[in-house]
C-alpha cells in the first residue's frame, strides 16, 4: 500500500496502490488527506461513516473522494485518516462503505495545508495488474 503525488501545474495528481480495491481507494484518500493535513489522528477526533455509489469503479473513486470532502465540511472537521470497509458490485454499478476519522481545524492548528476543492475526472483510472490495484486522479486545490 502506497501513494505518490503526480505533477500537475496548478493542482495535484494522486496515484495510489493496494492489494485490493479497498486498499488502493483508502490510499487515495490518504493521499488527498495528506494535502490538507500533516501527521496522524488528533486526540478527541471522531469517526464518520462514508458511503458512495457510482456506475463504474473510476467514478466511484471520484464520488468517494468528493464525499469525504463534503462530509468533513458538513461536520466542521478535517479528516486525518480513512479506512475503506468494502467495495461491492450492485445491480447498477458499485458501492463503497468507509469510515473517516477527523478532528476540528482548531485541534490541528499548525498542521493544516491546502483545502482540496474537489476530485476531478482528469487523469482518472482504476486498474488491476498482477494482483496490484492502482488508482489515479487529479484533485483541484
Amino acid at each position, binding site marked *: 500500500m502506497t501513494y505518490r*503525488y503526480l*505533477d500537475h501545474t496548478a493542482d495535484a495528481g494522486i496515484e495510489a496502490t493496494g492489494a485490493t480495491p479497498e486498499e488502493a481507494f483508502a490510499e487515495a484518500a490518504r493521499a488527498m488527506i495528506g494535502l490538507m493535513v500533516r501527521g496522524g489522528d488528533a486526540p478527541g477526533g471522531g469517526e464518520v461513516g462514508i458511503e458512495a455509489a457510482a456506475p463504474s469503479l473510476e467514478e466511484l473513486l471520484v464520488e468517494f473522494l468528493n464525499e469525504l470532502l463534503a462530509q468533513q465540511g*458538513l461536520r466542521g472537521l*478535517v479528516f486525518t485518516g480513512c479506512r475503506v470497509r468494502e467495495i461491492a458490485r450492485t445491480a447498477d454499478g458499485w458501492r463503497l462503505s468507509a469510515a473517516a476519522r477527523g478532528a476540528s481545524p482548531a485541534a490541528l492548528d499548525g498542521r493544516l495545508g491546502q483545502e482540496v476543492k474537489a476530485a476531478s475526472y482528469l487523469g482518472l483510472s482504476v486498474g488491476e495488474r498482477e494482483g496490484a490495484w492502482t488508482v489515479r486522479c487529479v484533485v483541484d486545490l
Partner: protein
Amino acid sequence: MSGPVEVRQVSEYVWEIPKTGPMLVPGRIYADRAIMDQLLAEQPKAEWNALLQVRNVACLPGICRFSLAMADIHPGYGFPIGGVGAFDAGEGIVTVAGVGFDCNCGVRAMRTGLSRREVEARKAELAEALFRGVPAGLGSEGDIRLNRREVEDLLRTGARFVLRRGLGIEEDLEYIEENGCIAGAEPANVSEKAKQRQFRQVGTLGSGNHYIEVQYVDEIHDGEAARAYGLALDAVLVAVHTGSRALGHQIGTDYLPKLKRASERYRLPVRERELVGAPIGSPEGREYISAMCCGINCAFANRQAIGHLARRCVSGVFGIPPESVRLLYDVGHNTAKFERHRVDGAERLLLVHRKGATRAFGPGSPDIPAAYRDVGQPVLVGGTMGTCSYILRGTPAGMEETFGSAVHGAGRLKSRTQALREYRGERVVAELRARGILVRSHSLRGTAEEAPGAYKDVTAVVDVMEGAGVSRKVARLRPMICVKG
C-alpha cells in the same frame, strides 16, 4: 487527431493551432516566444497539457470563431486555465470544465484613500487586523450563519443579500460585475448538500491561491484610465481573491456526473473525461446553467462579505469612516455567461466560458459602470505576493478578438509538489519580510506552494495582452501585506 499539437505563429503575440480533423475552429493562444516554448516543452512530458486542451475545446459543438487561451495559460481540467470558449446560444454547449469547481472565483479591489506612507507606519497592525478579522484557511467558518431558506435567498440575490445584513454600502453594487447578482439563478437546482455546506462559509477566504493583499500603486501606465479608476501613485488598495467556497465546489461535483451522462446522451465529442457538457438548450444544460448562476451569486456575496470585513479592519486601524474605503471593481474569472458579441459583422448571443480568464469589456459597453465607460472595464490581474499585480483596461480590440476577455493572473509555472521541493514557507515569509512585504498565513506549507517563484512573470503575461492590443496596462501594484488562507 493524436500526437503533439502543432502551432504556428500568426503575429508577435498570437499563435494558432490550425483547424484539423474534428476541430470546428482553430485554436488561438496569446503568448510570447518564452511562454510558447514552455507550453511546447511540456507536451511530451505531461499527459494533460494545455495546448491539447485548447485543441479539445475547439472540437465542441457550437464553438464560435476560436478556442482561445490567454497568456497565463496552463493545464486545467478539460479546459485550460486561461481558456475562453464562446458557444452559440442555440447550437452550442455548456461545459462544467469551462467554469471549474470554484465558480466565479474572482478579484475585488478597493481604494482605501490612504497613501503608502500612511499605511507603512501601521503596516504590522493592519496585517494583524486582517489576519484576525477575516476567517481564512482550511475548515474556517464565518460569523454569518445561514439556514436553508437564507442560503436560497443569497443564491438568488448575490451581493445584495450580504449588503442587507449590514456588510457593505449601497454604492458597492454599482462596481460589481452584474451589479453583484446574475439573472437566471435557480436554487431548486442546487443540491441540499451544497446549500448545507454553505451554512457557515459566507465570508470565508479559503486557502490555496486565495488571498487578501494590501497593495500600493507604483506605476501609472495610462493616466486617463487611472483618473477614471481613482488611482494615483502611492495610493493604497486592498485586493481580495476568492470564490464561491464549498457551495461552488459542490455544484461542480454534483454536475460532473450529470453532464457526463448528458454528454453520452447527446453524443458530444468528449476528448478528455472532464470536458463533459450538455447542449445549452437541453434540460440538463439549462439546469446546470441555473445552478452555476447560483454559484456565481454565492461568490459575489462572499467577496462582498470579505470586502466589507477588510474595510472594517482598515477603518479600525486608521480611524477613518468605513465608507471611505471604496470599491474600485469586482470581477470573476471562472464563469460561463450569456453575452452579445459581434461576430463577422452580426450580433450573436453567446455563452462565453472563461476558465481562469477575466471579462475585459472595452469602452462604451453598457455592462460596465458609467464612471468607467469612456475608458473600458477595469481588469484585475493578481500577480504573486512577492512581485506585483496589475490593473488593466478592456479595449475595442479585445471585444473583437477575445469576446472581451483577458488574463486573470500570472499563471503557475511550477507544480505544487515542485514548489514544495524548492521552497520553505518560513523562508518565503522571511525573504518577503526583508523586502518589506508582510505575509500572514494560516499554512506555511501553503505559503511555500504559493512562493513567487512558482509563478510566471506576471509582467510578461500582461505585456503579451498589451502587445496584442487585447487589454492595456493602467497601473502596477506592489504588495505590502499578504494574508493567505
